[in-house]
């Protein structure tokens, strides 16, 4: 598999900082904001955003992690039931502005599932979407409000985000499929 690096650690750090500023600008401050990161890696990014926002604005935001497996639209299509990870949102989202955070925005199906999951938790005033990488090829009418980097890709390529917390380094790679390789759909998410 050929592999190219799209973002290095420094670029990721600056992107997170910029997104934090953009969120605060858009929301005119930190009032009513909560962050929900989509497992996996979206939650690590959400935590980083919370740290940045606290540094910039002094406000400590609630951060939740959401696993969208139960809301996927392709349950029953794979050989095995998809593996489930932790969901923890132990604050009320009703009346709040929820910023959904994910690492890669691709087909939009993950975000669609996340929105459906969130409305079962309560009724936010509004939802915003922040992603580290937008790689195009939307299959649903979903768009991100805050984007770290727009990266045009071929549909059969895969984008892999590595984060210090999980993978020991910060980087974003694009990988070409090897001969005979199936289109990767990422780690158990439908993107």
């Amino acid at each position, binding site marked *: 598999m050929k592999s190219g690096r799209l973002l290095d650690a420094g670029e990721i750090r600056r992107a997170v900082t910029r997104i934090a500023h953009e969120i605060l600008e858009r929301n005119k401050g930190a009032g009513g904001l909560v962050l929900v990161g989509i497992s996996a890696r979206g939650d690590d990014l959400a935590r980083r955003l919370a740290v940045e926002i606290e540094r910039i604005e002094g406000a400590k935001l609630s951060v939740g992690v959401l*696993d969208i*497996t*139960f*809301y*996927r639209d*392709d*349950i*029953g*299509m*794979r*050989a*095995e*039931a*998809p*593996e*489930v*990870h*932790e*969901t*923890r949102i132990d604050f009320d989202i009703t009346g709040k502005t929820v910023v959904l955070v994910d690492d890669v925005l691709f087909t939009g199906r993950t975000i669609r599932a996340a929105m*459906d*999951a969130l409305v*079962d*938790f*309560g009724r936010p005033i509004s939802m915003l979407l922040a992603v580290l990488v937008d790689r195009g090829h939307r299959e649903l009418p979903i768009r991100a409000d805050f984007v770290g980097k727009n990266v045009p890709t071929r549909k059969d390529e895969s984008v892999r985000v590595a984060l210090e917390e999980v993978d020991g380094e910060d980087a974003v790679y694009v990988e070409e499929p090897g001969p005979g390789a*199936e*289109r990767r*759909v990422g780690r158990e998410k439908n993107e």
Partner: protein
Amino acid sequence: MNKHLLSINDVSAEDVVRILDTAESFREVGTRVIKKVPALRGRTVVNLFYENSTRTRISFELAAKRLSADVINFSTSGSSVAKGESLKDTALTLQAMGADAIVIRHSSSGSPYTLTKWVRGSVLNAGDGTHEHPTQALLDLYTIREKVGRFEGLRAAIVGDVLHSRVARSLSFGLVKMGADVTLVGPPTLIPPDAPAWGVQVSHDIDGVLPKLDVCYMLRVQRERQRQQYFPSVREYSRLFGLTRERVGMLPEGCLIMHPGPMNRGVEIESDVADLPQAVIEEQVTNGIAVRMSLLYLMLGGSSERSGDE
């Protein structure tokens, strides 16, 4: 995972870990305001209960509904089952209704196996005669893991009428599979002589076993068994094998007291013992829904006939 869950031996140790881990997520769902996820939307789960069991049936029903599946209940009161329709004819009717999963509880050992011959969906054994009750064992394993944190080397005793207990079989097999140390305790007439072939020990002296336990699992002993002369009197049975206040005092600190319910207070367990904090009997019930959701999700969440695009 296996297509059917007829016996605890249908799942490997890895499967058990997966089932229990997934049950954690479903327990979280139970804490939400909307205790429902769309994971099994459009699937049909049938509860085929030939034996009355409000507790287990409701547990399965809630589990299926919280997964957004459609639920059909066939129970002994008020359906063709009561009119004496054969198991086969009932199965074919359910098959025609497109049941994706059939949860069956029946008084004849082996009936879930028989059912698999006539239906295409998954069959889950909710208790068959004196054979097995694998979902009960799984939820007991969940409770144990939650409270004690491990299985390897865990010292467990299962006390009472093992011979007639489907719970005892499933739990013994399950605990042994996960590396625990299991001792069956009871009068010789109620413990199968071949039990050591299951990988367990046997003892007829409860007082010798209690001081070295992490889990004390009391089985229900029916008064019927006295009539069948497996022991001379209920009084003698509870004196020799009942969990009394004194015996609880002999248990190590932190030892769990468990019972599959419903209890025969005064026979296998003294009434006030059941209400002690070490007795996690109520929690066994709560965890049941999460574990059953986990099973339904893992068994139906993969493709059966459909081939998906990846």
